[in-house]
């Protein structure tokens, strides 16, 4: 089984600064982390590989500074790591991002199963996994908590977590699966592999190496545009803030509850 895991390096949300005048987000000073749902995706992929055999390749897109984050993947058990890095990929929305990732998956030899996190903690669109599936003409199952082997080698069984229950589908391969955050407890770094992971090279693909249709890449391939940033309109709240004893606080809250017409006595 050839498995590709899409891993995103995201800035820590609390460290991103907003410049309302230039309408830009300043991520330069922000420390980064692996997107939490993607770490669950990696665990799903590794556990599945451990049962059925095969190879797990981690795929990411971003500047060369992301390399150290990707080295974590071989240290937990991934077989190789690939970073897509080129200015031509920058400024991508979900359409261009999914095109770039899908093209890279083809370039590195294709995959039977592509595992992503349900959504990124920065963009939060959850659109990239189904979009990759469409570019590759693969089947898809999003919001998955578990995958197991199917009846034949051409399928897997995926359990999706939906609003009203859990749906198990038989999914034709190749397929894209997105994994819900918290679906599993990701295995921790194996320090016996750490030195190997640090020395292992992360394969970097730039535009020349990737190929692909430039009209679908980066800013040019992104039909959406940020028309503006604004402060969230704060509703007209009273904003009365008190530092009082617990009992006084309780009395004030109770009065608020009664004012809202919720308790009669």
């Amino acid at each position, binding site marked *: 089984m050839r498995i590709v895991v899409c891993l995103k390096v995201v800035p820590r949300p609390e460290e991103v600064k907003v410049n309302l005048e230039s309408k830009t987000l300043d991520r330069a000073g922000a420390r980064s982390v692996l997107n939490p749902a993607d770490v669950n995706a990696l665990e799903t992929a590794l556990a599945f590989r451990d049962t059925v055999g095969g190879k797990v390749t981690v795929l990411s897109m971003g500047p060369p500074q992301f390399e150290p984050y990707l080295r974590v993947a071989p240290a937990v058990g991934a077989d190789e790591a690939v970073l897509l890095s080129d200015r031509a990929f920058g400024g991508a929305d979900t359409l261009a991002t999914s095109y770039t990732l899908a093209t890279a998956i083809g370039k590195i030899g294709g995959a039977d199963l592509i595992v992503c996190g349900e959504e990124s903690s920065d963009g939060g669109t959850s659109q990239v996994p189904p979009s990759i*599936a469409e570019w590759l003409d693969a089947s898809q199952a999003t919001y998955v908590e578990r995958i197991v082997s199917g009846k034949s080698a051409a399928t897997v069984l995926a359990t999706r977590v939906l609003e009203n229950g859990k*749906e198990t589908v038989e999914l034709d391969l190749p397929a894209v699966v997105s994994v819900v955050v918290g679906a599993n407890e990701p295995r921790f770094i194996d320090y016996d592999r750490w030195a190997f992971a640090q020395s292992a090279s992360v394969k970097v693909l730039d535009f020349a190496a990737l190929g692909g249709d430039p009209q679908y890449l980066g800013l040019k391939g992104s039909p959406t545009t940020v028309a503006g940033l604004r402060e969230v309109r704060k509703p007209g709240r009273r904003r009365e803030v008190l530092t009082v004893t617990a009992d006084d606080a309780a009395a004030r809250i109770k009065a608020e509850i009664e004012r809202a017409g919720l308790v009669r006595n």
Partner: protein
Amino acid sequence: MTGANDGGCWVYAERQGDSFLSVSLELLGKARELADRLGGELTALTVGGNSGAGAPLRRYGPDHVLELTHPLLATYDAKAYATAIGAELSKSKPSALLLGATRNGQDLAGRLAVRMRTGLTAHVTGIELDDRQNLVGWVPGFGGGIEAGVSCPVRRPQMVTVRPGVFPLPEGRTPTGDVREVVPELSEKDLGSRRVSFEVKGSSVDLTRAGVIVVGGRGTGGDFTRLEKLARLLGGEVGATRIATDAGWVERDRMIGQTGVITHPKLVLVLGASGAVQFTVGIDRASTVVAVNRDPSAPIFDHADLGIVGDLGPVVDSLLRALEA
């Protein structure tokens, strides 16, 4: 250069069994308004295995109801649904397509956007029109209280997914519009997946309709027992921030905010949540907000009518005593 905006608005009306999700009806209400302002028509699109299911949508003001029916569409599959819907979009070329940001709605939207080579704005908490009549979807961004307006000026349809509860649920009215049924050409090989089983969740909660919500965040440290008791006393429900649901303290369907639900309660008590914008968008439609937090500079106090600076435990205990007295 800008795309056409008078090609009409489509709404994907999602079904659960024979009934439509309320988010789809909310979108019909909003899309009616948009279509009128843009001078186009409103089409409600529904997909399923049997014909005739679309008729109830006529009560929410569409000009047309389009039913795509085929036995292979009886249960949802992204590939088959995208094929069936994509063909109709290519034929009719609407200016906009709105979908509910449900799990299957998101699943479908991501695939369909690529099929149509168009832009998609996900999880919006507001839709406006810019001076060229393009849709601008407002998406809450990073902490720090900002939101980004995203538009898709050239490609069509402009696709947007909207959280449940963002727009008001319209009242059903006198039926309008015609119902047209299309049977797409599909075969087994157009499916990417087949449902094997479905385990219905025992108790599903819909916070969008709750009158009182007691919300716990990181500051609860994971102890929700007193919050549950408080919610019971007030006849309400327990809600949670993303941190609390990610930590597994509370089920995911109780998560409030940008990627959870947008609520409209009479009262919300926010306990131990700092007030990140991704969360506050989910409570800003409440009539009254009361917040308790240890940190006097927590942004939640800007979103509260009454804020209490202090430790959660003693305040909640006192409140429980006061309510039980």
